[in-house]
């Protein structure tokens, strides 16, 4: 960036998402939104310095076994061992490098290691269901875990959440912060899940579903799933160098 020629601050601009890409905050099918979704219209905030920067959280946050949820305890957890891997990209296809990825999930029986989760399914003393890793130079991440079970909740009659893994991502700017859920292909519970179906566009919903990938499956060891995550892309600023990002 040539600040000499830029009398005013030239900051990158992150493109707005389409309305159909994300669930509306007020989604009546998901009962908990009723008292929590803001009722007033959002106020447009032009992106300035605080919005186009963001925390750079380093390797110091991640322990050696944090990416492997099957090796954090005295013995292995029960359940189907899986590898979940993919890339974190921005909307222009650029890798989001060296960014923190946090995951959490229920155990194979569908129960979280959380005091508030007390439905009658067993806890697993060898499974906390929490992982962290940093993406590499290509934006790639990899977790080893067990496939989470589905679990019931009280949203509607005979309500069950499809199996999912929660993902938390920072990207490189405050604008890119994203928390989502990764689902598994062909889950028979999708039809009745108001959280999954709150995303209006079926093509957008499909972007939350991982793919079974036999090239990731490890012989005699674990099934493989791939899940790429796309954060907001940005428009080029007039003074941005052609190779600034790569």
């Amino acid at each position, binding site marked *: 960036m040539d*600040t000499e020629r830029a009398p*005013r*601050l*030239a*900051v990158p601009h992150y493109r707005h*998402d389409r309305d159909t*890409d*994300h*669930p509306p*905050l007020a989604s009546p099918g998901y009962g*908990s*939104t*009723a*008292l*929590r*979704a*803001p*009722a*007033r219209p959002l*106020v*447009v*905030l*032009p992106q*300035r*310095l*605080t919005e186009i920067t*963001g*925390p750079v959280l380093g390797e110091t*946050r991640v322990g050696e076994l944090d990416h492997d949820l099957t090796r954090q305890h005295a013995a292995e957890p029960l359940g189907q061992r899986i590898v979940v891997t993919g890339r974190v*990209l*921005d*909307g*222009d*296809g*650029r890798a989001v490098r060296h960014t923190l990825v*946090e995951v*959490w999930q229920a155990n194979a029986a569908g129960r*979280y*290691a*959380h005091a*508030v*989760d007390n439905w009658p399914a067993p806890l697993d003393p060898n499974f*906390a269901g*929490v*992982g962290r890793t940093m993406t590499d130079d290509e934006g790639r991440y990899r977790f080893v875990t067990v496939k989470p079970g589905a679990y019931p909740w009280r949203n509607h009659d005979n309500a069950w959440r499809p199996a999912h893994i*929660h993902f*938390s991502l920072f990207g490189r700017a405050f604008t890119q*912060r*994203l*928390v*989502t*859920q990764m689902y598994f292909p062909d889950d028979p519970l999708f039809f009745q899940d108001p959280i*999954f179906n709150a*995303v209006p566009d079926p*093509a*957008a919903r499909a*972007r*939350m579903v991982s793919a079974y990938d036999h090239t990731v499956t490890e012989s005699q060891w674990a099934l493989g799933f791939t899940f790429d995550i796309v*954060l907001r*892309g940005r428009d080029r600023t007039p003074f941005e160098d052609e190779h600034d990002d790569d």
Partner: protein
Amino acid sequence: MTDRLQVTPSQTVGPFLHIALQWEDGPYVVPPGTAGGRWLRGRVLDGAGDPVPDGLVETWQADPDGRFDHPDDPRGATASAIEGFRGFGRSTTDREGRFEIFTVKPGPLPAPDGGTEAPHLDVSVLARGLLHRVVTRIYFPDEPQANERDPVLASVDPSRRPTLVATAGPDGLLHDIRLQGEHETVFFDL
């Protein structure tokens, strides 16, 4: 130009976020004992005025000199003079919906259109029942003149501006975030 990709949709953090997103050092934007450090304390409340006990509040801010140690700041990445300055704070909410962040007051910032932004924190709120994070800002009560000239506050209906300005508290600042209701906090579309 590479091909454009469509974004991954947002989903709620759900009720069990504490198991992963609660960091021991989460509230510390600056290390304990930092000169000028103060606590920002508040509650997240729902439309009935009840506490949100399964929420997460995250903050992001410049350092006291108004700088970011970040490559996209067109003024250049600048390490803070405060050792251990992270700029980022994270607090889960407790049973009473309370959060707490230990921080310093950021400096004012030049705005791309030529104005000056008053010291502020950008804030994300996530919770069960929020399918997407909501974004707000927190301004400082001891900066009335800077707040008066702030372009973001100026864009907000004057009757709602108080929802963006903290009040003085016993060990720093107090600020409740109301997701809904009569005094609903102003939330922004980024």
